[in-house]
């Protein structure tokens, strides 16, 4: 039995769950195991109905008032019970911040392997190997989980496409699984989520973006990138380290912890292309990378690349655009 753990907040499905279902369907084809989607939370019937459209064996709701709001203690207790009850061989999850908060605890409590940030599945002899980035995307590893089942696997956001998930001819059957969760044993007391500041800049609507990374070296050099952005009619954005350093405001950050963008043109200046950044921009139609390191992972997603010193190249581009 392959389990997919769905993610929802306030009764709204996280779309990454569909990506995980697509991955589960590929794994099911290789291992010929049925797929069950598990929806933990409280008040998740709407989400469960939505997921029943998938080509899966069944959708199981695991509802308990103690699961709302989300806590790692609550989810670990509930999912340990559900996974044991459903006799899972694999437990698949989207590699979201919430998954990262509880999945290692759950896997550790059950003493089972957990492979994170997986981007693909391939056979390795008699085994199934999971493909994952290593060393900031400079290398890729095929990894085989060790020890008894179930094996936990989390999938990188965007590695599978939500629309790849096969839909069933008719809705999958739904049922409720009752698990005991001791609310008094939950140690974490979460407060309601909030947004730090209203996002004044909506980069998701920008047609062109010039984005800067560590290669810009110092704050004073941001002005050069800004000049290029002006010349191209682009918004300026940055990778996380630049915003961490306060060189550009946090609202200009592209990546998993910032905004997800899909402009016509994304020009990456001195950005090496860590996964956390690529997740936020690989949907751009045309990607240009300028970087001194020819092996930088950003070149793997770029349509056009220039290997060299951005401090020479950027002024030359500004000049060429004006002509």
């Amino acid at each position, binding site marked *: 039995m392959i389990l997919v753990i769905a993610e929802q907040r306030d009764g709204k499905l996280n779309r990454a769950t569909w990506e995980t279902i697509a991955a589960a369907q590929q794994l099911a084809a290789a291992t010929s195991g049925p797929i069950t989607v598990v929806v933990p939370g409280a008040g998740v019937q709407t989400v469960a109905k939505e997921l029943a459209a998938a080509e899966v064996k069944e959708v199981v709701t695991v509802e308990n008032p103690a699961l709302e709001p989300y806590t790692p203690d609550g989810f670990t207790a509930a999912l340990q019970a559900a996974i044991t009850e459903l006799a899972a061989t694999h437990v698949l999850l989207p590699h979201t911040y919430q998954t990262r908060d509880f999945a290692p605890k759950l896997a550790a409590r059950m003493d089972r392997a957990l492979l994170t940030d997986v981007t693909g599945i391939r056979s390795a002899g008699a085994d199934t190997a999971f493909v994952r980035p290593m060393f900031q995307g400079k290398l890729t590893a095929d990894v085989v989980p060790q020890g008894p089942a179930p094996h936990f696997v989390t999938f990188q956001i965007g590695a599978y496409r939500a629309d790849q998930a096969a839909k069933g001819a008719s809705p999958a059957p739904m049922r409720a699984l009752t698990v005991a969760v001791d609310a008094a044993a939950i140690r974490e007391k979460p407060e309601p989520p909030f947004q730090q500041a209203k996002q004044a800049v909506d980069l998701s609507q920008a047609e062109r973006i010039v984005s800067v990374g560590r290669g810009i070296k110092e704050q004073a050099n941001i002005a050069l990138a800004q000049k290029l952005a002006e010349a191209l009619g682009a918004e300026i954005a940055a990778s996380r380290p630049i915003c961490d350093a306060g060189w550009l405001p946090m609202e200009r950050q592209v990546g998993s912890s910032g905004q997800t963008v899909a402009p016509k043109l994304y020009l990456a200046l001195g950005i090496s292309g860590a996964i956390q950044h690529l997740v936020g921009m690989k949907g751009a139609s045309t990607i240009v990378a300028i970087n001194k390191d020819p092996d930088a992972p950003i070149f793997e997603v770029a349509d056009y690349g220039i290997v*060299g010193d951005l401090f020479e190249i950027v002024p030359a581009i500004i000049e060429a655009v004006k002509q």
Partner: protein
Amino acid sequence: MKIAVCIKQVPTREWQPRLNDTRTWIRDQDASFEMNEPDAYALEESLRLKEKHGGEVVVCSAGPARVAQVIREALARGADRAIHVEDEALASADAFVTSGALAAAMKDEQFDLVLTGLQSDDQGFAQVGVVLAERLGRPHATIIMEVQADGSNLRVKRELEGGWFQWVAMPMPAVLTIQSGINQLRYATLKGIMAAKKKEIRKVVPSAAVAPTQKIVSLYVPEKGKKTQIIGGSAAEAAKELVRKLRDEARVIS
């Protein structure tokens, strides 16, 4: 407040990967190493908490002998002493093995707070902090951007996705994984470097080995998803050609 900060030594950002003969790990001897960046932020946060509340900061690291370099650096920045779980096999250990080694060495210390980075820049599991919390029987919170601690109460700001945050309260002792950018890092002073030489590094041999849960069967340079047109020539030539392609081929600028 007695604070532990777990740090890892990872290859530098400039390191060009080279594989070992079996293509299952890197050639360690060719790599240069530095402190994992998110762990550096966890160290800084530990030092700030100590400055505010008193107590001590203990650096904990599980790895081969070379890890002593980042331990010394952490001591030079202001940590008080260190625990080094030393074993060559820990260089490529999975998250369960690393957490198991750390938990065994840290168990008797009774730390009020354990901090570490949210993930490492080498294997990038994003698991060690949370698994460590489970092994130590402590509550935890991940991807933390602010820490408020007083007495036995802890309130932390957890980063959610897409610019959302959430405060979470929990009792101490607890384990936190720290997000990069939570604070501004300090550098070691000459005085700090000198003082570090006298600070205690307790070496620990890993006790009962935890069984690995992951096996790398193949390590390789990623296959390109896209065909990248690399534009050569001088800066001026490359710039001119790029602008031409963006205008005429991609049609994304006017």
